[in-house]
């Protein structure tokens, strides 16, 4: 038995290394791709230059924040999906699907369009987090009562739709001639034209949130045996729930406030990696964070490579990748749940 775990741990280490390498490659690819052709080496040397050359400005002010946000938001979505799926022991829990992202977007939209964020810039991530908190709370209330997958998903669809509709309504009613363009941004998400200000604004909250969620790994292992068993093993179930709620709320709220609601990353990534880590949530959490970063970085590169003229929205691409996967998941689960 002990040897088996050692073997699993060795495999886990290799997996972490591979994923970390993929993150680095994705990060470099994200830095290298854009409408202006600058080589990877030139971009890298530009990052550490203090001249005001065009290439330096493009590397430092446009490409770097985009790559940093891609990695951080991808990690946020991946680990949030893994933690929520582990906690509610339901493979469909994910920030995008159950309305957490959409509620966070609504919170951010309200601070922007009622002028709060122009007065106090920090109200933007705060608004996103308040929105996310409401979304997570609804999820926990519904999932915490031992309800079925169907209830969770239907409630998720209702929350997503309502939050999306309210976001569109706020934009429609605001004296804003750009409503159509911005509804698309908030519903689909994008990393285009973000700046270092967005990194400083959202980055710390995402890091704290991710760190908080990482601490629930071991308790989640115990929780996979059921709440009662976990309690007898000495797991503080309420404490775990609280850490997941606060962590996911902070990370997803801040991520959505600067990049809109990006769907499907949190759903797909844990499912792809779960078989590789032997269905152990404590191993799934860090691997999902890395996997999410990889997926979002490469999606964001693909979006830029595929774009001719107006840029393809990131959320469109992740949905294109995610929806067929989701369909397959539903077909597979049909025999288990319905």
């Amino acid at each position, binding site marked *: 038995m002990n040897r088996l775990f050692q073997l699993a741990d060795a495999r886990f280490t290799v997996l972490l290394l591979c994923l970390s390498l993929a993150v680095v490659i994705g990060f470099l690819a994200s830095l290298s791709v*854009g*409408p*202006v052709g600058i080589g990877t080496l030139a971009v890298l040397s530009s990052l550490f230059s203090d001249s*005001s050359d*065009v290439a330096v*400005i*493009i590397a430092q*002010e*446009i490409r770097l924040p985009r790559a940093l946000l891609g990695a951080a938001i991808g990690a946020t979505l991946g680990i949030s999906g893994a933690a929520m799926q582990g906690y509610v022991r339901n493979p469909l829990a994910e920030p995008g699907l159950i309305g957490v992202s959409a509620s966070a977007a609504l919170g951010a939209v309200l601070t*922007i*369009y*009622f*002028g*709060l*964020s*122009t*007065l106090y810039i920090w109200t933007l991530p705060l608004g996103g987090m308040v929105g996310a908190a409401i979304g997570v709370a609804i999820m926990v209330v519904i999932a915490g009562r031992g309800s079925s997958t169907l209830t969770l998903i239907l409630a998720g669809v209702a929350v997503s739709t309502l939050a999306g509709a309210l976001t569109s309504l706020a934009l429609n*009613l*605001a*004296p*804003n*001639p*750009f409503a159509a*363009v*911005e509804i698309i*941004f908030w519903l689909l998400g994008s990393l285009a*034209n973000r*700046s*270092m*200000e967005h990194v400083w604004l959202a980055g710390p909250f995402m890091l704290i949130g991710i760190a908080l969620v990482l601490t629930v790994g071991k308790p989640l292992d115990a929780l996979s045996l059921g709440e009662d068993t976990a309690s007898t093993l000495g797991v503080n179930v309420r404490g775990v729930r609280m850490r997941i709620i606060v962590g996911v709320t902070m990370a997803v709220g801040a991520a959505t406030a600067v990049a809109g609601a990006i769907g499907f990353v949190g759903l797909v990534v844990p499912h792809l990696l779960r078989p590789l880590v032997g269905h152990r949530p404590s191993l799934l959490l860090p691997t999902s964070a890395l996997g999410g970063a990889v997926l979002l970085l490469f999606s964001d590169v693909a979006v830029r490579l595929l774009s001719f*003229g*107006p*840029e393809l929205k990131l959320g469109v691409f992740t949905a294109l990748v995610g929806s067929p996967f989701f369909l397959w998941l539903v077909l597979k689960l049909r025999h288990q749940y319905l």
Partner: protein
Amino acid sequence: MFIQSTQRFLKICSSFKPKLLFAVIATAALSVAMTEIGMSDQQHTEKPKKIVSTHLCTDQLLLLLSDYDRIASLSFFSHNPSMSAMSDTAKNFPVNHGFAEEIVALDPDLILTSTFGHLSILLLKKLGYRVSIIPVASNLSDIATNIRLVAEAIGEEERGEAIAVSLTSRIDAVSLPDVTMRPLLAIYNQNGFTFGQEALITQLIETAGFRNLGAELGLGIAQHLPLELLLVHQPDALMLGDRNTSAALANELPNHPSLRRRYTDIPRIDMQSHLWICGTPFVADALDYLVEQRIRLSQ
């Protein structure tokens, strides 16, 4: 700030219901009335007495050419000072939103609109209303043509001719000091949109002795200009869009740190967009302003 916004939000919400109710009643009443009477063809020989415009650009041409007592309604954009050069005058007239029902309720003798019209125009034509569709001006000579078209439609040919001739002579009078140097101008509006080929503003910019980056990159009307391309092409002057007063993500982009860092000392041309959005005689003012900026740049 927040309270004001909330109040405005509530006001908009509360104002919605009666309008909706009115619209429903009006539709019902009008559909009955129309099937009974049948819409007769208008007499085109008489000067129209009740004119409705549903497009920002025809709004302004109508205000310039017509007696005010013949104007029944203008488009709701006409009251917006950043879009309409005649918003102050336009505020004396009721607005429409281009809905067929609103316009039918006014029972106009003539409807002026442009090619970016609504579906409602098709409906209004079908109902037998007289509709004049004035094409969007994409170059300077189109403006005089459009002035004459509107003037003819409303029976004010003499006024139209006078305004068209004076506009043409103002445009022809533009003279440039030095045509060997043609500075590169980049338009960068909210959400990163620029104007290129076939846009009226491009001809204005070129007539004033600049080159337009959007046109040189082969972009069309209102297309997205990637921030990186804007930085790489190093324009000699930037024309940023009117700062919109309402909060929106759109205003973030022209303030991106990369622009601030690169172009701290680049000349910025703050042209009021209401002067050039539409092909009206006000483009002559826009042209004068651009020539002034061009001369300032060469000094």
